[in-house]
């Protein structure tokens, strides 16, 4: 799973409002919980992948779609063949089913992180009149994912010089020691970054209450309405379909 944070979205054919993507994420969660029919899931997954492709993540969309289709096919074959060891067949089917049902959630999350810039996010939250107390922590979280990755990279290098092994065997032999070696430097450097970051952000007026504006344009356009209704419609259809069961 790759949650690279987006910095440049100029390659996208379809530019969706972050709010639309959030709606997609919500309906995906609903779909995951309520969709009991493979056909419905199949339609939902394909639509999601196509939108990912249109949003500029061609490879991600195509790859995910192929894996998704193959797994549905594979599961279908297992279920319909009716042969083979029931234990293995059952285990495989349930594993694949779990993955398939979580697929929309993963996919929509990746769509959000990989095609939305943080600023668009903040702008969208502002447009939704979210209080800063919700928005800022989310922004900081996004800012911190790559920071931790970078720190970890540095620590790993430092460990290599100190002969601290990260091979599985060494970790199994002394798990606590290894965790200590990783956590101590990570915590200390994160704390110092955090504090300086807070000072910098405050000195630049981040806590200015609710009159923050945004340079980003977030606007709900026709496509956004279309996509939103489509996904809400799908989710609604799943829920109704479930009642009918």
């Amino acid at each position, binding site marked *: 799973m790759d949650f690279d944070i987006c910095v440049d979205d100029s390659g996208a054919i379809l530019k969706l409002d972050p709010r639309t993507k959030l709606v997609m994420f919500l309906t995906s969660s609903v779909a995951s919980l309520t969709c009991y029919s493979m056909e419905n899931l199949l339609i939902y997954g394909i639509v999601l992948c196509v939108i990912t492709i249109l949003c500029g993540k061609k490879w991600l969309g195509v790859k995910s779609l192929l894996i998704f289709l193959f797994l549905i096919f594979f599961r279908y074959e297992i279920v319909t063949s009716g042969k083979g060891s029931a234990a293995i067949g059952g285990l495989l089917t349930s594993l694949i089913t779990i993955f398939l049902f979580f697929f929309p959630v993963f996919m929509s999350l990746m769509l959000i992180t990989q095609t939305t810039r943080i600023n668009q996010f903040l702008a969208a939250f502002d447009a939704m009149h979210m209080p800063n107390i919700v928005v800022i922590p989310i922004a900081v979280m996004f800012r911190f994912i790559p920071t931790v990755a970078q720190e970890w990279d540095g620590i790993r290098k430092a460990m290599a010089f100190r002969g601290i092994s990260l091979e599985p065997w060494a970790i199994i032999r002394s798990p606590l020691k290894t965790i*200590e070696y990783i956590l101590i430097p990570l915590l200390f450097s994160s704390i110092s970054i955090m504090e300086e970051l807070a000072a910098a952000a405050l000195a630049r007026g981040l806590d200015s209450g609710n009159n923050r504006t945004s340079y980003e344009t977030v606007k709900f356009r026709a496509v956004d309405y279309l996509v939103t209704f489509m996904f809400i419609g799908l989710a609604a259809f799943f829920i109704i379909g479930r009642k009918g069961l």
Partner: protein
Amino acid sequence: MIEIKNVNFKYGGEEGPGDGVEDINLTIKTGEVVVLCGESGCGKTTISRMINGLIPHFYEGEFEGEVLIDDYNVSKHELCETAALVGSVFQNPKSQFFNVDTTGELTFGCENLGMSREEIGKRFAKTVTDMKLEALLNRNIFELSGGEKQQIACGSVYATEPQVFVMDEPSSNLDRKAIRRLSDILKKMKALGKTIVISEHRLYYLMDIADRFVYVKNGRIDREFTCEELRNIPEEELFALGLRSTAIENLKPRTENDYSEKTPSVEVIDLTCSRQNARIIDIDRIVLPKHSVVAVIGDNGCGKSTMAEALCGLIPSSGSVAFNGAYLNDKQRRKKCFMVMQDVNRQLFSDSCLEEVMLNATQDEEEAKKTLEKLGLLEYADRHPASLSGGQKQRTAIAAAVLADKDILFYDEPTSGLDRLGMERFGNILRDMKNDVAVSVIITHDPELITHCCTHVLHLERGRVIGFYPLDEEGVERIKGYFLSPSDDNTSKKRDKRSSVGKILGYAGKHKLSIFFAFLLMTIGAMASIVPYVGIGELIRRVIEAKSVTLDNSLTIVAGVVIAEVIYAIFYMLGLIVSHHAAYGTLENIRKTLQEKMEKLPLGFVMNKGSGEIKKLFTDDVESIEALLAHMIPEGLANLCVPVIALVILVAIDWKLALLTMLMVFIGISVSRQMYTVGMNKMGSYFAAGKRMNNAIVEYVNGMEVVRVFNRQKDSDYKYEKAVNEYRDYALEWYRVSWPWMALYKSVFANIVLYSLPFGALFVLLGQMSISNYILALMISFGTGPMLLHCMSFIGAVPQVSYKIEALESAMDSVPLKTMEEEFAGSDNTVEFRDVHFSYKDAEVIKGVSFTAAEGETTALVGMSGSGKSTLAKLLVHYYEISGGEITIGGQDIRSMSLDALNERISFVSQSVFLFNKTIMENIRMGRPDASDEEVIAAARLAECDDFIMELRDGYQTMAGSAGGALSGGQRQRISFARAILKDAPIIVFDEATAYVDAENEKKMKRAISEITRDKTVIVIAHKLKSIENADRIVVIDNGRIVGCGKNDELLGNCEEYRRLWNLNEATQDWQLKKEAQI
């Protein structure tokens, strides 16, 4: 106006480096630039924090007094209100940006202040143009270098247009270019009437900006200096005050450094390193002497850190690194090396200092304590490392490295943000430790540290070494030159992240579609190739199921098999035809692009590469791409696609069997992948050895004459033999690791059947699978096995091809000459050299040369061989890029002219004349291609060529190739004169053009020369001083510098070097005369 009135502040808790400040009274007028200086922890940062309101709102403590900006009380108002008035830039670039993308960061401040979108847009655009940030837009901040981040930080504050700027050590992570840009930005801000308060250690870049320097000591304002006062303080007093140098010009080399140690300790050959498909490091060879302290300099993002990490074996790289003569792999290098990181927090792992240094020490605790004492850390032995100050943490890391017996120590910008004392203490530690470790390598932007403790300098640019020199007097001059040279272009480029295959496909252009088409055709063909297997399977099934097989009912199957075979043959062949068309079309594009790039490269660079290497590039390397485009991509993909489809069919037949097959294929692939990476690692050394061998062979052949004459066969043979042996060893090594892999994939993929056969049989026996399905599955496996094998053999060839593609890429992205497309726009044809510097490889050849060659005059350059006079001429015609200063023609910089425009101005008559294999007529016509035959002949007459040309067999129509042997040096020379006459350029350069003159030719030559040089700007480079004694100006050059300039008589009077040259000349002439007399 900023007023700080009777302020006392004491930090609560453990915030900040110092304890606080007392009794601060400071008034800063609007539009003033004030620098707060002083030792670390003296309280200057605290004062700056009061102005931007972080004290007392963020850093809490006991605060008394008031801070006013005009009538606005900073300490009473909320931080977000202050933000509109005061813009802050902080020391650490890593922790002062809030966004992940640069554009978002630049607008962040404005957004917080609640500006309208239009206003933000306007300010954003203004900031980008004012601060030259175009190259940094739409990028991930995490991928930027420290200096680039700091630029963004300055930019985002600049965009909010505050009245007051507060900067806390903004230069500590910047390279010289970025510092210069920072100083330009500051000047611009000052001109706009902004008030600027900077707390800073580095003073030199602020000397002509600041109005006042406020010296803070122990939490109190101690003194104030004006710029003038500070500048006049001698170095010793600055040291006592704990202040850094005020001018780089004052830096002096340390005389006690010893450069006699020449034993190589670390030897690096052909080191290359790529990150995300972009080549970052490309080093031919570096040798670091034993016990040297090497400073690595270069602009931000030039690959200094990457080089260090590659040398340490931290990141994958290819090439060979030898330590004390033995080649080391990555893992061995990690054992030998240690890096003190810029962010030292990351490398402290233990609970106490002592434990930390003992973590993997080879010595006992006694020794550890001794080392700690040496570094002044003994009293902190039991403290937790996190509670130490930055400098102490750094020293703890050094102690750990020394105790772990590390031989090569790397320091990544160790003195950023250190005051004078801290910097000197660190320098002293390095000097003391010099002999305990083999080599110390320091990545730094700090000229003071470099002159304080380094012995050598390694200069990188764009991932390539452009100089390695000892830090003696001359070296210090070069260092100063580097740090002082103006340069304001932003070189930061977005790295090209396409894979090498992607880049090559980029050249394919319209052929890309053909390649895709070829892939489709081959896929159809490959699918058809499975059909016969399925058909035969069907026949077998009938037999097994005891149905009668007659010609009638099997005829359709047989026909199907035949048709499938035909389709296979036709489509596959068609695919190959299409793919080859596309491939050769693309090769054509690549060769054309290569040639275009080559034309823009410095001519000197091309010549240095040697025709052999360039030939190899254009033919062999480019050719190797054919395999990729014609076979690997379409054929490999088709061969991969079909098995995947087959697998899907297999799932439909029986999912269990399919699952097992997948499992086996997966194991096979992961094993081969492992082997592939191992093979890739050895690949670099193997190719490097190949390159060394080629060089050795060329040298051997070229040097054969000298070797035989001086009877040095032994040395030469030894070198040759060594290179050949090495190549053999590396090649065998590579094959050794690759063989098992090849064997494995062959066995795994050729016999997929082997896995499906037994398992399938088992399923049939258990009644899980019908026999007909079993047969079908078997047949499909038979059909796809060869394809997978084919595919894998392509994958095996990928490393070789991608290596060659990389070589091609690196040749293509050499730095082109700086030319612009301007026409000549100078006022006249006066040539002026202004403080020109030029370095060739490790040596600075031209060291600040300034002279003027006026129109209508003859300027002669004289000097010993190797003094640099020919180089000067070559610089004028832009064969090389100068490294400092400028060369102008009529006031216009030659770098702003297109090469064509420049060539039109200058005729270059060199000592070696190349005649193309064309007629003499055509050869002369090269001077001006549109000249008529009559004009050519007229020019030849003027150049005194006519006589001897007419004596040739076919006159002007004689082929120069066949006549070449018949022409004497003097005659060839005169042909080149004819070219110059024909060209009639206003500036003429003679590079030892009279070298071949003999008595018979001399008169004619002189006449020819006077014909060419009438009313021109003439620059003559001459050995024979007699020939230029009448020149209007003689410039005497010695060792890259001008030592005298004037007329012959003046120089004979006042220039010793000229007199020496003159006497030498006289002596040789005498000698010649005597010799002639003897005959």
